[in-house]
């Protein structure tokens, strides 16, 4: 089992990828990113504000050496997502993209038909496509057939904090695609959610709201970094089987006489 996570050209020591949205301040973001141990962050692509100086401010607050994973968040059509991805490549000098084609405003579930189309287009253009998707194994297979570099199923809706809503679905994906990079993207609310997702077979976890909107984002960032590593180690360590009854951990022999 590899101890690093390879995404595109990046070899990541931490299996936690953090978003950069929703922080109360850029200083807070910087500190949270730093303590989390993450080596890759997602960024959004948005129009610059004309007349405002300092569009670079955000980037300047990213810890040095941080790899960028631009997303196409907010795109509701394959076409918008493709154009946004191209702009992201131009902006960031890298062809890695977290591909989102959203199909519903309230749940932010993907539009899988548009997602498949955009994946196909971008792969042909040389992108390393990491598609945000549902947990449907047939959709995952079609994404992979179109050249997706990983599958990124949601644990639960983006920002919902519901954690792993369907553990069985993640188990199925891991079993059907044993050699595919599987990143759980969205829904993680606390450390145990992150550890559980890793134990179910994820190679990494991408999250934003769970950290950025916690009361103390820095503490939660650290917690998430530890939990992802804990879950990864636990998955590889071969846990004990669950039993209904007990099994003593101290010797049964050698008791003093009553």
């Amino acid at each position, binding site marked *: 089992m590899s101890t690093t996570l390879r995404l595109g050209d990046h070899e990541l020591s931490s299996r936690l990828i953090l978003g*950069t*949205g929703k*922080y109360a301040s850029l200083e807070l973001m910087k500190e949270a990113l730093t303590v989390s141990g993450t080596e890759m962050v997602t*960024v*959004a692509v*948005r129009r610059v504000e004309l007349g405002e100086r300092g569009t670079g401010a955000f980037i300047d607050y990213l810890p040095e050496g941080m790899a960028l994973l631009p997303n196409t968040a907010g795109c509701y059509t394959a076409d918008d997502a493709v154009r946004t991805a191209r*702009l992201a490549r131009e902006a960031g000098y890298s062809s890695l993209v977290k591909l989102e084609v959203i199909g519903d405003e309230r749940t932010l579930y993907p539009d899988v038909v548009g997602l498949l189309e955009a994946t196909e287009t971008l792969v042909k253009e040389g992108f390393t496509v990491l598609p945000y998707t549902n947990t449907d194994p047939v959709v995952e297979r079609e994404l992979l057939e179109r050249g997706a570099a990983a599958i990124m199923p949601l644990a639960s809706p983006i920002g919902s904090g519901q954690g792993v809503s369907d553990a069985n679905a993640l188990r199925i994906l891991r079993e059907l695609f044993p050699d595919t990079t599987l990143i759980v993207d969205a829904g993680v609310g606390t450390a145990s959610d992150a550890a559980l997702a890793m134990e179910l077979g994820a190679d990494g976890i991408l999250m934003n709201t769970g950290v950025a909107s916690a009361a103390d984002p820095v503490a939660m960032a650290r917690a998430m970094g530890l939990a992802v590593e804990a879950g990864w180690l636990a998955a590889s360590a071969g846990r004990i089987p669950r039993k209904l009854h007990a099994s003593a951990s101290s010797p049964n022999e050698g008791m003093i006489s009553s």
Partner: protein
Amino acid sequence: MSDAAATVRVNGRDEPLEPGTRLDVFLSQLGLDAQRVAVERNREVVPRSQHGEVTLEPGDVLEIVAFVGGG
């Protein structure tokens, strides 16, 4: 009709355009650092290396974007 009326659409708003303005100059006029933005012109990305070769036309539709915090 007059030159003064020439505009380009930038990020959804009309901006005045001096005839013959090159993209690199235009960005500079807007106070933007080309190293930190990406530009789409009429739905095609203009690579940074070509900013100095592209002359804007009245009616061009530009999207000028940068990275911001997001998840």
